[in-house]
């Protein structure tokens, strides 16, 4: 087997691996929403309520806000 064959096989299996990762991701998205761990759809509101004075959909962390205000 020369380098070109190795490249071709590596490419093929790497692709297969990435396909699995992608399907895993789909599964992760839907299952974490079903279990109530996360609500992805609420992030759509980030674009709609985007004044600098609007309340963030998810604040970065309470501590940091306190630091800024101090």
């Amino acid at each position, binding site marked *: 087997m020369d380098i070109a064959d190795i490249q071709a096989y590596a490419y093929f299996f790497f692709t297969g691996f990435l396909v699995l990762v*992608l399907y895993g991701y789909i599964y992760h998205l839907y299952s974490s929403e079903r279990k109530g761990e996360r609500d992805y759809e609420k992030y759509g509101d980030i674009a709609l309520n985007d004044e600098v004075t609007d309340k963030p959909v998810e604040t970065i962390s309470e501590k940091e806000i306190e630091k800024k205000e101090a």
Partner: protein
Amino acid sequence: MENRPLEYDYSVAKLFMFTTIVLGIVGMLIGVILAFQLAFPSINLLLGEGLAEYTNFSRLRPLHTDAVIFGFTLSGVFATWYYIGQRVLKVSMAESGFLMFIGKLHFWLYVVGVAAVVVSLFMGITTSKEYAEFEWPIDIAIVIVWVLWGISVFGLIGIRRERSLYISIWYYIATFLGIAMLYLFNNMEVPTYFASGGIGAWYHSVSMYSGTNDALVQWWYGHNAVAFGFTVPIVAMIYYFLPKESGQAVYSYKLSLLSFWGLMFVYLWAGGHHLLFSTVPDWMQTMGSVFSVILILPSWGSAINMLLTMKGEWQQVASSPLIKFMVLASTFYMFSTLEGPIQAIKSVNALAHFTDWIVGHVHDGVLGWVGFMIMAALFHMAPRVFKRELYSKALMTTQFWIQTLGVVLYFTSMWIAGITQGMMWRAHDEFGNLAYSFIDTVTVLHPYYTIRAVGGLLYLIGFFMFAYNIYKTMSARPVEENELQSATPMAA
């Protein structure tokens, strides 16, 4: 100073809006000249024999492509970044003197880079790699400009209030990383003057790769310049502007995440479709084709997500020209991402390659999708940036129809021309003698070239209307903050 309420600061966005319009006019004007030159060769001597060196097709073509890609499109990407970035991260550039400084430096160095490109290409200084024509000193300047943009992007993300990065931000980050990687690898070059100890011009260079390797790297770059210049950042724009303008949150946020990773995963492998039937390994060509066909899925994933965002709100398409621009843009996106995979099928490519059909494909993508979306973005931004209503809705609607007609004339004429050309090149008699000589095709194609030029001219006229509308908006009726919530205020 604590008394003044915090506001977004659009000074850098404004600067880039300006270059978007100016470089759009320059690039498209040259495009129209090119199109007329192809139909009427005497226009190569536009300014007489003496200046023919500067006005001929071959000198102007890279100026067109680079002005519209790195001028118009990139400026649009930067302008929208400096607008959307602040808003979805809920942090103002006014809060950081450092980021403000970097933003302005980014703009001015960009202008210097553009000037260097224009001058050097007019002088005929080029590396002869398509979309990567710049010689090494300019490449270095471009890398610096890019790094400055990176600092802006990650700097703003670093001081954000909104914890989650909105989907558009993901696309901007991908644009930044994608182009950085592609540009660096494709422009690895040896400055001949220094390598040879003083022979030739100091700015001249040759690629570090040669033969098939050079072609492979070039089209891995060329294809993904399309991906990360004409697709990814434009998707970033539509994911923000369409929901915001229509007041409807994106139809499915999960689908947007999925399409993002799908696009990242598939795009980088599809470049092989530019090199079908060339000397690259066969398996690579086949994979290029296969990945190109799969690429429909994530592309349509985004486009359908956009159209579904309008679900139940279709009356807005009729009533708002701004929504019209964006809905047509996503439709053209679907269109060119269906056409592309078809052209990537080997047997189709055998006919289509080297013909005008490819040029048609390019321009239904760039005029219908990229151009429309960038103009829509600026139409949405202008009232917010200048705090005034859009100057004229009627002008905008007229522009929309003129340009749509222009795009349709452009791609339909190129389809007919391309397929005719392909068929004539391959036609032969029973002994294998070619049925036509090259000049036969030129004669047959002349009417279609003329139609394309007229279509392009219409698009350019529309672009002037756009520029005028934005210009007049700067002195239109001032509006209150609450009028800018979603649908853009516009005067009849």
